């Protein structure tokens, strides 16, 4: 069976209470669902024998600026067994800017989540080591948010203490 039909079908069978929004654009399957289920869905996708999405290539977020649910967290995962790429998405609101961490499912998500936290300020619950990835620790802003100016904020990066 085609993976594009199999993945949504299996997910719907396994999680009947969760609503999945499935889209297929340019031959890439995207599945969007509520952020409450992110760990259980990811775990299932990784551990199911037919699917085996064992390789997490990328975790990032998109800032939609003026939308009601401001951020979307995006996971690009890959199944080496089936040679199939899948994208998972989950909306995160600015008022409750947190989502559960999948770094215990895929070890490689660890640094990607740290980077997303650094750049967008989205907190990852239960993350083993949620520090900033690139920016210094005293930095107060999240640079990839759309309200952060391209020129930077003068004085926001203090010189190192002597």
């Amino acid at each position, binding site marked *: 069976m085609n993976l594009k039909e199999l993945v949504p079908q299996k997910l719907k069978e396994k999680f009947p209470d969760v609503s999945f929004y499935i889209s297929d*654009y*340019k031959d*890439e399957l*995207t599945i969007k669902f509520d952020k409450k289920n992110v760990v259980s869905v990811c775990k299932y996708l990784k551990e199911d024998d037919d699917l085996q999405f*064992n*390789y*997490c*290539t*990328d975790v*990032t977020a*998109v*800032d939609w600026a003026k939308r009601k649910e401001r951020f979307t967290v*995006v996971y*690009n995962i890959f199944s*080496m067994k089936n*040679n199939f*790429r899948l*994208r998972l998405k989950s909306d995160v609101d600015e008022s409750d800017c947190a989502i559960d961490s999948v770094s215990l499912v*895929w*070890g*490689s998500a*660890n*640094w990607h989540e740290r980077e997303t936290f650094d*750049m967008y300020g989205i907190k990852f619950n239960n993350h083993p*080591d949620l*520090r*900033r*990835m*690139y*920016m*210094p*620790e005293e930095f107060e802003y999240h*640079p*990839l948010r759309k309200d*952060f100016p*391209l020129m930077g904020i003068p004085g926001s990066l203090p010189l190192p203490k002597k």
Partner: protein
Amino acid sequence: MDQLEKEVHPKILQALLDAKTDYTFDDVLENEMILNMGPQHPATHGVLRLLLRLDGEKIVACVPDLGYLHRGYEKLAENMTYYEYIPHTDRLDYISPMANNVAWVLAVEKLAGIEAPKRAQYIRMMIAELARIASHLVAIGSFAMDVGALTIFLWTLREREKILDIWDILCGARFTNSFTRIGGVANDAQPEALEKAKWFVDQFEPNLEECEKLVNANRIFIERVDGIGAVSKEDAINLGFSGPNLRACGVNFDLRVNSPYLCYNEVDFNIPTYSEGDCLARYFLRLDECRESAKIVKQVLEKMPQGEVLANQPKKVLPHKDEVYTKMEELIHDFMIVNFGINPPEGEIYHAIEGSKGELGFYLVSKGEGKPWKCKIRSPSFNNLQVLPKLVVGQMISDVVAIIGSIDPIMGEADK
């Protein structure tokens, strides 16, 4: 320890002290030591900083600290058109800029629905493979140099110079090439460039063998790296190793075969794999990959078709420069594309190529404007570095240098 907490950043230090340390050594010295390695260290290949917790000379825990070369390329991408971003991709993996150019234009072409002509695709394949050779030559040479074999570095760089000369003929630049264009390449490959590429691959094999001979039978070198920094297949996949490093762990995975792009399904080549997953396997794998890449370049040169190098989509693809000066229509298109961009339809794509260091991908979100709404660079070096703590824990302090050299991180790419 009090002194340290003042000097080192508290949160990083905390992460180091909190690290899981299952490692115990019999011959412990009395105290653990914390050592700061880098960012200014010749063996870290740039500005990688490591915090090492040592028990005698053995490493108990390691915390890498990135960001010393963070230039905000993802933020910059959101503020410029797709064409303007091509030169910036040169600065990601600055050892093989051509491969980054190819990765970026392929991602944009997928987003905008453009297909480059056959000849352009073959030229791209040629430059991507030459870039892989150039990158691996630096990796091999600097890895050997890190563990004390200096001569091979000079010899591999001599070979690399020849590739840079080809690029000089091809696009007028040796280092930051920006040779590809959306829908094709900047200019057709000159006959001299193709001849030189053919000459290069013909003489490359014996020369590489010569380089190998310097160290392959060298007992000091082999014993220094054999069995050092080994990682299992499962851990390598779980922690996100990619490219040559992943294949050295016994995973037969290469995007050129598993999800072919360009015309890789028309050429014949092997995917070398090793099962040991240690520094020596990574070194041998890179040597093998150089040979396979040379094989691909040979076939590409034989099969390269004649024809146009830019796609015929005037609203999205920049016209040739001589046409801009002489024809009205082309002038208008050039003006519109340069000033307002190519406006791909609303949507999002992820496209990855097998870059020199591993899976180099771009995740692009378009809102139908000239600029990308979001651009995420999935850089292989960033992922490969994530495995570093796993590799160095339990090894000796002098092995850290060998391990960093063997996974070949490029900080321009890891820090974006």
